[in-house]
């Protein structure tokens, strides 16, 4: 009688579809161990040769060193992180050096321009030279010196313990109010931490840094103003800027020290290139600059890009 089904040799396991998992769970040990044990049981153990012994020691020692080295390497920060950090640090340093180099060259060029201007104008047009010098003081491009007032604003003592609280720090708005108050009080030239404040200088904050003329400054902030010291001080105290400073000192604990200085040296800011603005011809004529020989008197490459006919 023909069998309708193939002979069943073994009962089908219920979990036959999970043989991989079963294999893993039930026989986690390398089968090699059992085989070796069976071989040893079958044949009486023979003495192992010296070469095999040395081989085992060397191989196991090498593996141990490898595992230890791997573990040590894995516990360190990855090389990629370090490389990226080093790259960024190098870039920051490079850019800083570049900025320093460029600002030095900018200062040298500005000095050269003013020297050339002086030598060119002193012979031909002393009146124009005087006007230029007077205006460059007002524009903040020429370094100036004179008596004045030094005001130092420093962060409150508590700011170190509470770095999140911006009220305890000197902010851009405090410097803006102070500088405007000094201008109103009759200051002739102002610099903050050695950065000359000119007509186009912006005082603003970027993050936690205060930028003056786009240069980041750190506290304490020294504001130097040239003018009559006692006069400046009186007018400043009477103004709203004076009240603001008093509030900073009394309410937020910000350090304010105001001292009269016999001599202050303020650097000139770099020449401000005018991109869009130009002086109309009739205004030049009215100012008496367009003299009989304007082309000879005014060098082509002045400190500004003012269009001079």
């Amino acid at each position, binding site marked *: 009688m023909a069998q309708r089904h193939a002979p069943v040799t073994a009962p089908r396991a219920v979990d036959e579809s999970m043989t991989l998992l079963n294999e893993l769970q039930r026989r986690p040990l*390398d089968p090699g*161990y059992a*085989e*070796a044990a069976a071989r040893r049981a079958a044949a009486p153990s023979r003495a192992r040769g010296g070469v095999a012994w040395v081989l*085992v*020691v060397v191989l196991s020692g090498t*593996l141990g060193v490898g595992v230890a080295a791997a573990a040590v390497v894995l516990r360190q920060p990855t090389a990629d992180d370090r490389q990226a950090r080093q790259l960024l640090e190098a870039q920051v340093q490079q850019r800083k050096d570049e900025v320093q180099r460029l600002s030095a060259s900018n200062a040298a060029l500005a000095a050269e321009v003013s020297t050339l201007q002086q030598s060119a104008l002193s012979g031909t047009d002393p009146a124009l030279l005087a006007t230029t010098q007077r205006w460059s003081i007002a524009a903040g491009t020429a370094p100036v010196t004179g008596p004045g007032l030094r005001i130092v604003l420093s962060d409150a003592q508590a700011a170190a313990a509470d770095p999140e609280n911006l009220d305890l720090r000197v902010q851009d708005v405090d410097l803006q109010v102070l500088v405007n108050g000094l201008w109103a009080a009759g200051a002739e030239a102002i610099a903050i931490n050695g950065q000359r404040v000119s007509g186009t200088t912006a005082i603003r904050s970027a993050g936690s840094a205060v930028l003056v003329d786009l240069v980041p400054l750190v506290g304490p902030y020294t504001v130097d103003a040239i003018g009559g010291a006692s006069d400046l001080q009186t007018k400043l105290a009477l103004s709203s800027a004076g009240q603001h400073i008093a509030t900073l000192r009394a309410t937020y604990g910000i350090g304010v020290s105001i001292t009269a200085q016999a001599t202050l040296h303020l650097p000139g800011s770099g020449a401000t290139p005018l991109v869009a603005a130009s002086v109309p011809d009739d205004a030049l004529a009215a100012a008496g600059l367009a003299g009989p020989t304007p082309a000879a008197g005014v060098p082509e490459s002045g400190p500004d890009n003012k269009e001079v006919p």
Partner: protein
Amino acid sequence: MIAILGLAVGVVVGLLVQPTVPVELQPYLPIAVVAALDALFGGLRALLDGIFNDRVFLTSFLSNVVVAAFIVFLGDQLGVGTQLSTAVVVVLGIRIFSNAASIRRHLFRA
């Protein structure tokens, strides 16, 4: 027994000397270490079972590490490196767990 002693000595030497691992090999280190752990637990269990064998231990150790690293390398080449690493870790992890359970039964009879 010599193999385990040699391994221990090697680990101590490696920790003292701190040799540098070539950068090209570094992606395969985590998986290789897991594979080494698996072989180590297998050897410990065999020791407790009384069937430990130096040669089997060393060959399983070496082949585990090499094969695991090779699988990761292959996976990286095929673009499925992470998934294959996960698969290897799952399989080796299950084995480590079962062997650890067996060792526990041997040691504590529970």
